[in-house]
């Protein structure tokens, strides 16, 4: 099973800027859209309450603008994805078309959920991000290349350094981000561990 997992060394595509700190998972996917037993179709509900008013009329939001419809790289600010553990959040973004997110910082569970889907979450400082967001506004059709292996982002004529968490980089570039198979192969060690714990009595 492990050999089916692709190695993800990079991601590229045009960008979409989502500005603001502390953008929480309730904004990314409101709870009422989570009453589903599969993740299929969540894409259209990403940022729903930011994108539509109470009559479902579109509001001003980058994800509603025609020039960003093909975006694959989201550029965000600090503490993105804070709040609940719902994997529905990165699932919705992924199904909308996002392949990688560049931001100032990410909430941990959110970043972990992204990793489990093979979506890199790379970080850079405030000024770098702001500059990139402004650039994306001016160049909505131009590609951004996220090089996970070498921890750089290239856009226009420019290449900037970014940070990719060590474990995330390894997992993505070595194709071991799907942990189920990997851990399943240690079943004997798991059983031994269970037996050694004083509170496990079954």
């Amino acid at each position: 099973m492990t050999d089916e997992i692709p190695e993800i060394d990079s991601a590229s595509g045009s960008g979409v800027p989502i500005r603001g700190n502390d953008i929480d998972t309730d904004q990314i996917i409101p709870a009422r859209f989570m009453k589903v037993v599969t993740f299929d179709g969540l894409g259209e509900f990403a940022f729903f309450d930011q994108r539509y008013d109470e009559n479902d009329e579109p509001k001003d939001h980058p994800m509603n603008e025609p020039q960003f419809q093909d975006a694959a790289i989201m550029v965000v600010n600090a503490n993105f994805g804070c709040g609940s553990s719902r994997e529905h959040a990165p699932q919705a973004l992924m199904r909308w078309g996002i392949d990688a997110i560049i931001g100032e910082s990410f909430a941990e569970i959110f970043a972990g959920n992204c990793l489990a889907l093979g979506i890199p979450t790379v970080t850079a400082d405030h000024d770098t991000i702001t500059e990139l967001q402004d650039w994306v506004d001016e160049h909505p059709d131009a590609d951004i290349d996220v090089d996970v292996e070498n921890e750089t982002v290239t856009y226009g004529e420019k290449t900037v350094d970014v940070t990719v968490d060590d474990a995330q980089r390894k997992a993505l570039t070595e194709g071991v981000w799907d942990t189920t198979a990997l851990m399943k192969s240690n079943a004997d060690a798991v059983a031994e561990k269970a037996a050694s714990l004083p509170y496990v009595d079954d």
Partner: protein
Amino acid sequence: MSEGTLYDKVWEEHTVSELPTGQTQLFCGLHLIHEVTSPQAFGMLQERDLEVAYPNRTHATVDHIVPTSDQSRPFRDDAAEEMMAELEQNVRDAGINFSDPTSGEQGIVHVIGPEKGLTQPGMTIVCGDSHTSTHGAFGALAFGIGTSQIRDVLATQTVAMEKKKVRKIEVTGELGPGVEAKDVILEIIRRLGTEGGVGYVYEYAGEAIENLDMEGRMSICNMSIEGGARAGYVNPDETTYDWLKETEYFQENPERFDELKPYWESIRSDEDAEYDDVVTIDGSELEPVVTWGTTPGQGVGITQPIPAPEDLPEEKQDTARMAQEHMGVTPGETMEGYEIDVAFLGSCTNARMPDLRRAAGVVEGRQVADGVRAMVVPGSQRVKAAAEAEGLDEIFKEAGFEWREAGCSMCLGMNEDQLEGDEASASSSNRNFIGRQGSKDGRTVLMNPRMVAAAAVTGHVTDVRELKEVSVA
């Protein structure tokens, strides 16, 4: 790097292997599941033809979508019914114990785990819900996981994680009258920020924490995640052990208590443990804290002025401006007097017996203010029954509160209990994000349960300490 802390010891104790990614494969002592985040994981398991590896170490309940009024089946809401049916099917197929609404022990997952004695010191506990941090109150290492990780745990009973740093938060002194655990954690988040805990696990210590009952410790650990920390814990002590003795598991297996106690003692942080960071807060200086904004870090003491955005650090100014506009609050004023439409006493932060008792103490002999919709949603069926045995339900009902069935309810508005339009709610829950309570124009003010009771009877945010004096005089 930390050394000799409970976190280090429990981590070590549960390490199965080091993975090629540099992550640790960690054994999960207890896996709690509920209806919202598990169905997709069961689906993934089926796709790969895998089975639940340790059904005995897995426990299910239903909390997010259950109606808290009419629970007869099928549920009125088709989507809720479908999720419930899916969970029933999954647990039946896998042989997982399920505290369903007919069991008398259903409730919010973070309330029932401790009640049943499933939650124990020195365990690793995971659940597809960020407030799993609650269980850290017992000296367990407990954290929320995403759905792909739920799949991992179902298939292997292990999870891949990176070790975090440990920050000790020492709350010294004695809390003043009217100041509760909820105020302590709101203050911690206000000071350290909603992302202050990213990369850390929080160890809560100090006199003010040690003096708290287990429910208070749970309220604090519960909101670790609002402070950015994925887990938080309190070292187990006699308060913990006394509580454990009363739980279902140790009532049924009293011999296990003495067998396990040496282990619990052994995983306490050493006196000379090393921490990556230490923060000290003087608990005696605190007052009831309420939020003025739309993140849990935007809090203020009830007698203190709401900050002007320009007085905040630059990176917080925009969020503060938007929050103040959404909430309709004015910098320089206090939150006292902020009118509310709804009072919500519930959630895994504050819907346990002592919370309800304290709130009932404020409500007794008073009436819910005109135009205010007030509701109590007990954290579990056990809490509900215990409260009824003490007559708390009568106190609330006589005052004009709705007395509901156990569930998450208006904490996140996934069932029928939701804010409407721009209603403002005084809420004992943990998140005031825009849209959290079901209406995107809704306004949520977080506070401790007695403060919620006070707001319910006055119709506006009220310093419960003043209210008390008025009634005594």
